[in-house]
């Protein structure tokens, strides 16, 4: 069997068809798999996720794939967490009850603020298209997940929680909800996460996936 360009980690949560199709559309050979050898043998690993944090991380642990994703990260394979998959990269989440994450990027998953900095109520979940801009201190997106992305490109978000890394250096891009920055893309070495759905963000999303394949 050909070594897959992309292993999409299948731990029994959510619809993986869209992620698979989007990578295939970008020309990748994709395996949707829960097999440890297939994941560790892939050139790129994608950790998808929808639903609630405790359920998803519980399923990942139950299948033993939490260890495999960590091994892939340690081995230097580019790992991309999408939406809840990005949130699972952090140390813990407070969704429902404090629950440990994968601990690959320091930080804690917290609710999207229901009130803006200026005191206006905000709708939760945050659903819709929002533009990407560089996080504070980020001078360039060259050689990153956003290498071919332009500031202002809009992508599709749907989430109630957000994953702010503790270290400012791990923030790559933000979007604004109300008047507050929401972490949109995070990166710590070969471990990457995007809060939006690149597989549902039209051409702007496919551009991000192509950049991931080039890493």
């Amino acid at each position, binding site marked *: 069997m050909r070594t897959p360009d992309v292993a999409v980690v299948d731990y029994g949560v959510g619809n993986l068809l*869209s992620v698979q199709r989007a990578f295939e559309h970008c020309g990748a050979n994709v395996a949707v798999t829960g097999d440890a050898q297939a994941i560790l043998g892939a050139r790129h690993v994608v950790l998808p996720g*929808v639903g609630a944090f405790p359920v998803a991380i519980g399923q990942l642990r139950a299948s033993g794939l939490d260890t495999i994703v960590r091994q892939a990260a340690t081995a230097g394979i580019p790992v991309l967490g999408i939406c809840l998959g990005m949130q699972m990269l952090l140390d813990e989440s407070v969704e429902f009850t404090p629950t440990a994450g994968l601990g690959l990027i320091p930080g804690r998953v917290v609710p999207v603020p229901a009130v803006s900095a200026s005191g206006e109520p905000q709708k939760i979940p945050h*659903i819709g*298209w929002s533009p990407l801009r560089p996080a504070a201190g980020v001078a360039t997106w060259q050689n990153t997940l956003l290498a071919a992305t332009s500031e202002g*490109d809009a992508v599709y978000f*749907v989430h109630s929680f957000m994953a702010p890394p503790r270290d400012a250096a791990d923030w790559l891009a933000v979007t604004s*909800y109300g008047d507050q920055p929401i972490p949109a893309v995070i990166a710590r070495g070969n471990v990457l996460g995007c809060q939006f759905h690149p597989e549902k963000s039209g051409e702007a999303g496919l551009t991000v996936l192509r950049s991931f394949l080039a890493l």
Partner: protein
Amino acid sequence: MRSTRLIARLDIKGENLIKGIHLEGLRVIGSPNEHALRYYLQGADELIYMDCVASLYGRNSLGEIVRRAAQDVFVPMTVGGGIRSVDDAAYVLRHGADKVAVNTAAVARPALIAEIAQRFGSQCMVLSVEAKQIAPGRWEAYTDNGRERTGLDVVEWVRQSVGLGAGEVLLTSIDREGTRRGFDVALVAAVTAEVSVPVIASGGLGTVAHLVDVVKTGHADAVHGGRAALRPSDHRRDARGGGRRRPEREDLCARLTSPSSITASEIS
């Protein structure tokens, strides 16, 4: 900054895309997948598939249509019409839908809203409401594409549904549907004032002014453009990155509302 979503709606009957006027008098306008792909390429933010007769005949034919669309369409897809159970929702989600829209079955058994929200998340559970004005400032919820009265007050029904876990509301004015006379802004405003989840305004889009009105006065989070027949030449390539720029909002609105954007084959 949060921007208003422009959503293309595909009304499906069997294998065909149809167009409704007052949710009746349906006419065939072509193959759904062809239109889905075109809407996607032309910059629609989301697609909503509605199986218009599914609840009437108690069946669901959308799974295969959605599965084919999911091959090439990379924006969110909502599927409604004939979703009667958690299993029905699981079925269309497995075929590539991102959300389900429920009306008739939720009215018959409101607990279904909670069951779908708990299983798949609130973001997945879209309450579809067909509203008909019965008095100034009062609307009644209908089901089965405007055929059946429910006796439910729209604002009260939406509030109850959001309490049960509905994460988004697709609010269609039966009075305005297909008329191009503008949204029922009072209806949209009454609902958005009551709930904190996103509200999609549907029914009556005709001009850019209608759009502005329903967003500014009605506080809609998204609008439906069923006749969003946009032209492929409208794609914009970003010269720097090579990626597609999302079309300018004003342009998109103009195309969504322009009668000339409807081709002859669509209305024949």
